[in-house]
């Protein structure tokens, strides 16, 4: 086999799923043509339901193609899946760790299965454990790890050997920026040292831009392919950064830009300003009007800009329904709705949350950031009254929900990390249940369900069981269920993990509109650029509070000038600075 041969090549590859009940076929992949050269790093990107996972599963020999041919490492996958499986490593989206085995035992198992020689193991383990920051937890049962740590362990198990081809299905969902950075260093190193080929599906476009080649999938079709640079060029000369006049929050400008779909393709907050991409044939005067005096400068386009241009071209204007949220205008004031003082939570001798204090005011978007296992979810669960605190005081809407009467819980909404919905109930049944649980009934319930279906764009899916919804829909339904009773305070635990850029835009558009209407929002996220949407953020690590303030204030903690530092670099800077003395002492 010569070196330049393709490691994966597909011709007219199709995959259809049969819906037994409806007797219909759903085409997950339509006539895909691929030719991925050996030794390259390739990214699959695309919105939810694009067919990324199906394509990877076909390559891994876990599914058989409906038609077309697929060659992996020179083998016909459908004819001889085992030969392929002997030579590749694959990390599924939901890596099924054995929860009752310890971290070390999970690693050993996969090392044995892949036939990694004993001699190589120690060095490999050390690197992997260091990278994933799991070295402290080798004896802990996998089931006792936090969500992000589980994901990292899954990746470590996949990387116990150097395969000829590495398939990664959204490997960094729910993984914090620090680990994400380290993880990509490892992948890069593997490619450099061992010439292996990697195919990764991801919803982080900054990850895709590290790759040699990017394939953009949409609705089972190949929308575009090329080097990141080629795709980036789609948005050439169209990217700008606008900084609004003093005192005006950038997200208002961002919302305005995002809604003007005829002129603007995309707008996101960035470093205190708004990064936006215009249509090619933008009307300059209309743009000026939109900017409303904000200072504007051109930027070099990046892959995400290119991706958005490609998708917009394909999808046309997207309805965001922001009007539906507009409340009575300025709902925010200085009233403190969440007050946390010296909050501590211990599990045995392990301190999950150490003496944390903060306030959240009405109508604020309050971001809770931190690496995996920093105690964010534990803090959340205490705020929602699901877990008693070990010491300290906390008040949500004036009461401690752990001890307050049940009706006090009407004032909060909670969307958990896993989007806890009743999987075999339909969208409508889920909404009806949660509405009823909050005391809505009759016409009021019907009206609220209707409003939620409209606002979260769930029309047409009312009869689908929620377990069968694609990820993005699930997230929207979970939001709808959490908001059906119009709570004063909304808790969102990693709501955007695994969501594609398009879905995240729509999500934040809704969140900012809610905050405008006076809803207080507490949110955790691993997308650091999303912290820019927040009014204030709190950075936690190992249960301790490291920083609190507006994104700008936090940024200035790291860099005096502060101006252009990205939120991700800020976050990493703060966490690493804090971990430094700890390591020195150890």
């Amino acid at each position, binding site marked *: 086999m010569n070196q330049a041969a393709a490691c994966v090549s597909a011709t007219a590859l199709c995959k259809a799923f049969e819906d037994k009940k409806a007797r219909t076929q759903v085409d997950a992949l339509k006539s895909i043509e691929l030719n991925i050269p050996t030794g390259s790093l390739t990214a699959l990107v695309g919105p939810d339901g694009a067919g990324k996972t199906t394509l990877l599963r076909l390559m891994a020999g876990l599914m058989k193609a409906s038609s077309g041919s697929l060659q992996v490492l020179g083998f016909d996958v459908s004819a001889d899946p085992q030969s392929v*499986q002997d030579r590749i490593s694959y990390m599924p989206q939901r890596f099924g760790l054995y929860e009752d085995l310890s971290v070390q035992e999970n690693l050993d198992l996969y090392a044995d299965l892949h036939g990694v020689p004993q001699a190589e193991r120690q060095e490999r383990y050390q690197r992997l454990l260091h990278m994933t920051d799991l070295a402290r937890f080798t004896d802990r049962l996998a089931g006792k790890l936090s969500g992000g740590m589980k994901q990292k362990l899954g990746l470590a198990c996949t990387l116990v050997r150097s395969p000829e081809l590495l398939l990664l299905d959204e490997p960094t969902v729910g993984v914090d920026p620090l680990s994400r950075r380290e993880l990509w260093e490892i992948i890069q190193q593997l490619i450099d040292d061992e010439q292996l080929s990697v195919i990764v599906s991801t919803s982080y476009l900054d990850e895709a831009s590290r790759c040699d080649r990017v394939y953009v999938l949409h609705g089972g079709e190949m929308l575009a392919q090329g080097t990141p640079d080629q795709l980036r060029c789609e948005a050439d000369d169209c990217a700008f950064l606008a900084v609004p006049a003093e005192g005006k929050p950038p997200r208002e400008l961002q919302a305005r830009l995002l809604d003007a779909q005829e002129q603007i393709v995309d707008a996101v907050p960035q470093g205190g300003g708004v990064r936006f991409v215009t249509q090619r044939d933008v009307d300059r005067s209309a743009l000026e009007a939109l900017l409303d005096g904000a200072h504007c400068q051109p930027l070099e386009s990046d892959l995400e800009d290119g991706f958005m241009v490609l998708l917009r071209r394909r999808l046309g204007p997207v309805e965001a329904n922001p009007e539906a949220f507009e409340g009575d205008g300025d709902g925010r004031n200085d009233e403190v709705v969440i007050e946390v003082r010296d909050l501590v939570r211990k599990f045995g001798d392990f301190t999950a949350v150490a003496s944390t204090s903060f306030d959240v005011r009405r109508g604020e978007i309050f971001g809770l950031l931190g690496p995996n296992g920093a105690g964010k979810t534990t803090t959340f669960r205490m705020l929602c009254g699901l877990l008693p605190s070990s010491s300290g005081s906390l008040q949500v809407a004036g009461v401690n929900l752990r001890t307050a009467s049940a009706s006090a819980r009407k004032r909060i909404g909670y969307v958990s990390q896993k989007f806890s919905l009743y999987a075999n109930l339909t969208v409508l049944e889920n909404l009806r249940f949660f509405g009823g649980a909050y005391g809505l009934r009759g016409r009021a319930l019907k009206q609220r369900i209707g409003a939620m279906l409209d606002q979260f764009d769930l029309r047409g899916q009312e009869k689908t069981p929620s377990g069968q919804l694609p990820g993005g829909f699930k997230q929207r339904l979970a939001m709808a269920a959490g908001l059906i009773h119009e709570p004063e305070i909304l808790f969102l635990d990693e709501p955007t993990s695994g969501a594609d850029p398009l879905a995240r835009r729509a999500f934040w558009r809704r969140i900012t509109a809610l905050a405008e209407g006076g809803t207080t929002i507490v949110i955790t996220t691993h997308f650091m650029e999303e912290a820019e949407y927040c009014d204030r953020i709190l950075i936690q690590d190992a249960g301790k509070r490291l920083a609190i303030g507006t994104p700008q204030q936090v940024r200035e903690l790291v860099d005096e000038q502060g101006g252009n530092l990205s939120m991700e670099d800020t976050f990493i800077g703060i966490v690493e600075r804090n971990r430094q003395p700890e390591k020195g002492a150890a």
Partner: protein
Amino acid sequence: MTQIQNQTQIQSRFLTRLLSLIRKETRQLLRDRSNLLIGIGLPIILIFIFGYGVSLDVRNIRLALVLDDRSPAATNFVSGLTLSRYFNPVHADSVTAAEQMMQAGTVEGFVHLSSNFARELSAGQAQVQLVVSGTDATRAGSIVNYFSEQVAQWSGKAADRQGVSSPPGPRVEVVDRLWFNVANTSSWFLVPGLIVLIMTLVGTFLTAMVMAREWERGTLEALFVTPVRPTEVLLAKVTPYFFVGMLGLGLCIIAARVLFDVPIVGAPLMVVIGSTLYMLVALGIGLLISAVTRNQFLASQIALLASFLPALMLSGFVFDIRNLPLAVQVICYALPATYFMELIRTLFLAGDFWPLIIKDCLILAAYAAVLLGLARFVTRKSLD
């Protein structure tokens, strides 16, 4: 030369993977207390219950006596009952009182001697009324039988004593010998039968659930895309549970020998071979169920329905198959548990009856081969 090397290399990799998977299964098995509860706790509970709690023997029959006649003949009649090891009689003042005792469940029946018992007896023909509660039909039937026999014996003696009759006359006397169960207790046949139940539980119920859990939690997706072969996954799954089943066998043998003095007349080696075969059958059913349902709740319910309850009710464990309607017998003889039940009881109680042993072993081996083969066929490394 290189081919041989390759061969050994492939074998050693196969072994590494298999051993690693077995280690994983064993750890998982040992870490969840609920598994051990089924594997060890439940057998002990069952041995205790079937050894001591559930008895099909008829002893200590609680009877109320209503004596409207206080004559010596009546008293003599009653003393016969008091001395019998079958009866625990108590006195009741009237038929009404006895009826009340029976309603309340304090006695299982009552005997009524009318006021003219002695007079009738001297005339050669007396009547005794026996009323039993039919709430346990078998027991009630036995009570009637035992009582009648007691009365027949007494009347024979009474006739001798009174010298009324001429020589007793010709008669046939039944001399019965209960083979294979010298102690004549039900625990002798229930305790060996428990082995069947326990192996079914561990092999089918537990294994089906554990395997279904892997499907349900998606742990197999990552496992499949490794050099591991489906056969290895299945073998690894089977191995620890096989030993848990054998542990159950060990517990039953110890309990049988130590607690209940049940003999093991047949060859111990055959006990082990027969149990091994049935364990493989049970595991095959378990793996098959889990591969088809891929869902814990369904797998557990089907495992209960298709294997455990039939083993309890239809294998001849308690209820003799010979007494059942033909249609039900057909179902019984389609169950592998039936053959193992027959085999294990014969080996424990009766001895080495080779035609029976060989027949049962062959049937079990055939079931094991078919079921395990099917399980392997159904388990594919595929998510389609």
